[in-house]
């Protein structure tokens, strides 16, 4: 078997081709990835649980199916991981918390996991997060502290930390993240991978512990936009268990990915970079990205995102109210069983009055309408940096500092789709992300833009050299 499986940054798409043409088998691939995790995960803190035995059995079964002519599609035999706030058949869901009832996961696969599994994905394990997908890592609780493979002293971002670090480190080819204020796009940016927050209502989120029910999204994380499109194709669509899912037919997310952006109008709000301090590498990286999008045929147009600050406030103060509603009983009786960063953040929901919460919903509606009107008149997508910086150090992490450095929360208030693709590095060699957002249910359009960018660049194909004293 070729060593490309573990030594180079190949994409899910490339692995799928290799599986289908017989270059490698799913069993061989899964074994190599698990061996790699044996060596790296004590330093990375990617996994909360590994499903070696069931994954290897599934991989062998899928190999046999393919050999017999039954092809489940692009994900057939592809190893993927699941953020540990989403239920899987293989084992318990912890939400990285001492609070969650261990039997919560007994109902088995969340719909989105069941869809991946039916499409042939091999579920290799559950990945680290922050407790209930909020706060910061807490060293006082018995869970791994996730680290960034680009620099083990830095954080991979959150809350889909392990999925981000695992894809970047080559431990699996794709995975599930969730995003309430940026938790797919932040780790995608910090880890140098691609992450897609779908339109609210496109992917069912039942079987996932809620944080802010009206802000939460489940989405794919992988190396490339095409990888994410292949995963989203399987994940999307109505499910009876989630009444917020759309009944609209699922479009083809892959067919339009041809690198041609002629006729596409890209809106860029350069004013954000004037209002918010950024890493010195970001302005040049953003301008270079815009040049590449222009090379693909797009027209770049200056815009100003309306109601930006209010929409950020509507997200960050809306989900805390929803989270407090979910957790208040346990917070009253089991305060210290929560990690300190998590209990502090969720408790800020008590500062949000009922009037504030209702007003936040009004702001979401006004803001979404204003952005939609802007986009209909001027641009098809809006791009910004994903974050104002590269990955921060693990030591001294501050939730408020992290949130203040993200350009992501407005797309949770609006529910519009947004993705992050790698666009360069800081002077410290830490990845930077480009965020691409679109109108509701235009996920195919932003995937097309991300894919076109990646056809002209190689940022997404860079894999970190992982070194550290704790590697085994």
């Amino acid at each position, binding site marked *: 078997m070729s060593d490309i499986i573990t030594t180079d940054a190949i994409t899910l798409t490339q692995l799928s081709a290799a599986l289908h043409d017989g270059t490698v088998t799913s069993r061989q691939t899964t074994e190599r990835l698990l061996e790699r995790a044996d060596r790296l995960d004590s330093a990375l803190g990617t996994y909360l649980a590994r499903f070696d035995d069931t994954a290897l059995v599934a991989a062998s079964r899928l190999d046999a199916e393919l050999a017999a002519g039954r092809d489940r599609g692009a994900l057939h035999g592809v190893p993927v991981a699941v953020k540990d706030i989403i239920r899987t058949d293989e084992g318990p869901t912890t939400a990285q918390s001492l609070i969650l009832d261990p039997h919560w996961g007994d109902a088995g696969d969340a719909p989105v996991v069941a869809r991946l599994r039916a499409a042939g994905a091999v579920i290799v394990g559950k990945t680290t997060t922050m407790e209930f997908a909020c706060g910061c890592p807490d060293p006082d609780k018995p869970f791994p502290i996730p680290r960034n493979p680009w620099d083990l002293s830095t954080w991979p971002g959150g809350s889909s930390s392990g999925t981000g670090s695992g894809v970047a480190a080559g431990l699996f080819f794709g995975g599930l993240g969730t995003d309430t204020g940026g938790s797919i796009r932040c780790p995608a940016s910090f880890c140098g991978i691609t992450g897609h927050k779908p339109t609210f*209502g496109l992917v069912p989120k039942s079987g996932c512990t809620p944080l802010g029910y009206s802000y939460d999204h489940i989405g794919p994380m992988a190396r490339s936009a095409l990888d994410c499109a292949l995963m989203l194709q399987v994940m999307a669509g109505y499910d009876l268990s989630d009444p917020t899912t759309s009944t609209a037919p699922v479009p083809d997310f892959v067919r339009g990915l041809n690198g041609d952006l002629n006729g596409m109008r890209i809106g860029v709000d350069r004013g954000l970079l004037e209002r918010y301090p950024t890493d010195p590498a970001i302005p040049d990286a953003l301008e270079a990205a815009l040049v590449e999008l222009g090379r693909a045929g797009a027209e770049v147009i200056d815009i100003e995102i309306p109601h930006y600050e*209010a929409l950020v406030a509507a997200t960050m*103060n809306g989900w805390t109210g929803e989270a407090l509603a979910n957790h208040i009983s346990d917070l*009253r009786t089991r305060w210290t069983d929560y990690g300190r960063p998590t209990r502090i953040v969720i408790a800020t929901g*008590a500062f949000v009055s009922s009037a504030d919460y209702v*007003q936040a919903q*009004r702001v979401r509606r006004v803001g*979404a309408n204003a952005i939609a009107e802007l986009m209909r008149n001027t641009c098809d997508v809006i791009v910004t940096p994903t974050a104002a910086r590269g990955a921060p150090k693990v030591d001294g992490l501050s939730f408020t500092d992290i949130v203040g450095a993200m350009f992501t929360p407005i797309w949770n208030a609006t*529910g519009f789709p947004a993705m992050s693709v790698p666009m360069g590095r800081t002077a410290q060699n830490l990845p930077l992300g480009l965020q691409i957002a679109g109108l*509701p249910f235009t996920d195919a359009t932003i995937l097309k833009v991300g894919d076109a960018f990646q056809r002209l660049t190689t940022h997404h194909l860079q894999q970190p050299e992982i070194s550290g004293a704790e590697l085994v």
Partner: protein
Amino acid sequence: MADERSADRTDGVPAMLIAAAGLDVPPDELAELCALYPDVRAGLDRLYAPAFAEADPYLIPTVHAEKTV
């Protein structure tokens, strides 16, 4: 102003809100929580800018992006 003056203390408005929620928070963490209050309140105050305060009152809750635009 009263809110701001009390923000770094554990006996002002933010502490009262935490207590009203039924949360029994140790003093050091209560101080940490109360220190966050001014920023949270400043964010909440942005929600009442004229563009939103004067918006159609029927433009309220939706959780479905398909229905928002």
